[in-house]
């Protein structure tokens, strides 16, 4: 009985709505979940009251999304209702942690938005950027007291765990925080390093093309400093001369001052999995 009930309640709360006056639909719902006899009669009788749980479940899950990607939801308008309904029906949450509902929703919704010409082109980047804020704010960080500050050319560079390198096609990070704003972002290739400061604030650093390529190789590709510098210069067809080396040194130094870069990866520190946002 409990398994059948769970399945029935899951459909009732996450699936398409069943009208309380539609007795045929209610009967079909019970049959789908093999609920029969006295239980089926009681559930039919109490069906309008059962719908309270549909409201509560949807309100809780919607609240989790509204608290993390409020501007994207506001700009989607009524379209979000349809996305949310289809998300619950087709790819409902499987996590006990509400913070993980948003990534699951975005994994479901982003490809749909990208395919749909009625959704503004910048909207997926805006939603990703809002979710990035929460992700970086809450990333687990391993203790790294054993990282040495000195960094040689053949060393791998150790960043804090709470750092993500992301790329957008729109400058959504410059949009106002105001949910009511409908200002449009500039179309531009943006690379952003998001990291959590020692004071637990999420901070962003907009990167130029070379800096983005260099950090991608260091942070994501886990290349040594020498390989990353030569690879990035070759990729962008830039001569690796003193000006570029100086700019790279200033970038790494600034990241260290900001608390995002720690130094040389020690041999005993496990390699971080790919950190591409």
């Amino acid at each position, binding site marked *: 009985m*409990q398994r059948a009930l*769970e399945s029935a309640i899951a459909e009732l709360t*996450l699936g398409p709505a069943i009208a309380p006056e539609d007795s045929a639909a209610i009967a079909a719902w019970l049959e789908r979940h093999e609920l029969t006899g006295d239980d089926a009669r*009681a559930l039919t009788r109490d069906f309008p009251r059962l719908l*309270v749980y549909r409201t509560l479940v949807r309100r809780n899950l919607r609240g989790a999304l509204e608290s993390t990607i409020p501007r994207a939801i506001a700009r989607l308008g009524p379209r979000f209702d349809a996305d949310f309904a289809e998300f619950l029906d087709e790819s409902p949450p499987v996590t006990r942690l509400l913070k993980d509902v948003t990534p699951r929703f975005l994994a479901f919704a982003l490809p749909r938005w990208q395919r749909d010409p009625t959704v503004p082109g910048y909207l997926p980047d805006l939603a990703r950027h809002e979710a990035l804020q929460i992700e970086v704010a*809450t990333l687990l960080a391993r203790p790294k007291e054993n990282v040495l500050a000195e960094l040689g050319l053949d060393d791998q560079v150790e960043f804090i765990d709470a750092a993500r390198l992301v790329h957008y096609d729109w400058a959504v990070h410059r949009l106002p925080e105001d949910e009511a704003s409908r200002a449009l972002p500039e179309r531009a290739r943006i690379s952003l390093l998001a990291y959590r400061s020692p004071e637990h604030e999420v901070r962003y650093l907009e990167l130029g093309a070379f800096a983005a390529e260099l950090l991608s190789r260091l942070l994501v590709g886990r290349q040594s400093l020498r390989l990353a510098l030569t690879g990035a210069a070759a990729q962008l067809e830039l001569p690796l001369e003193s000006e570029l080396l100086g700019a790279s040194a200033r970038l790494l130094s600034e990241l260290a001052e900001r608390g995002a870069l720690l130094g040389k990866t020690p041999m005993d520190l496990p390699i971080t999995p790919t950190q591409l946002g």
Partner: protein
Amino acid sequence: MPEQAEPKASARPSQAALAGVGLGLRWDFLEEVLDGPPPDVAFFEVSPENYLGRGGYYPAALERIRERYPIVSHGLTLSIGASDEPDPSYLRQLKRELDRLQVPWHSDHLCFSTAGERVLHELLPLKFCAENVGRVAERARRIEDLLERPFALENISYYVHPGEPEMQELEFINGVLDGCNAGLLLDVNNVYVNARNHGFDPHAFIAGLPLERVLEIHVAGHEVLASGLVLDTHGERVVSPVLALLEWTLERTGEVPVLLERDNQVPPLAELLGEVRVLTELSARALARRAERHATRA
């Protein structure tokens, strides 16, 4: 009003370290707790789901609060009554978190909140039947062993019973408690809400519970819908009838930690502390009356 025999003090799990009135710790006033004048609360309660798998500000802030106040833990998603076993990876994470916080006990709800892999993030009522009594009691025994600390189950608010009940709610709760060592987290507001929605006497209900097993008491506010349905929202002040029921209950349980829950429309901390003071005075009155009664009997 119905009476019952005095609880046997020895039957209650150890809670010597904790007494008085606590407050559910919410992020809305976390900074105020840390940076303002120390709030006069006996303890804070947290939901581990809000801290599991999370780094950054909130876990760090909780660590600082733990240095100043006792913390107890109240879970939301164990789903002890579901047909599937509780998620082992969740239980491992939970155990680590409880150890880190050094909580004296952990509680969760007598309900289900999952359907297979799907997590519904709502406390859903179990059918009051023997099959569920047996399954939940057996799991509660194992969970208490696994968590290595006392475990308590909370009576939930429910708006409809799912199907045809084999027994009443009271028999269901008592059956589960009879079959395990778990304590009872008695939510007095939930009893009141259920009594209003399902038409029973809340005093008789509480009197029928094994009050010697009450490990902690919760109170909160609720909302009455236009339809008359009472919803357990934790979004309002605790109403007078619930305060009166709490006082009546404490007179019968003796000293038990009481927690004020507020999850929605969270007001400024000062307002919540005002409610905590009311609860503290009420507890003192109830315990004084209980002591008088004992003295008279002696």
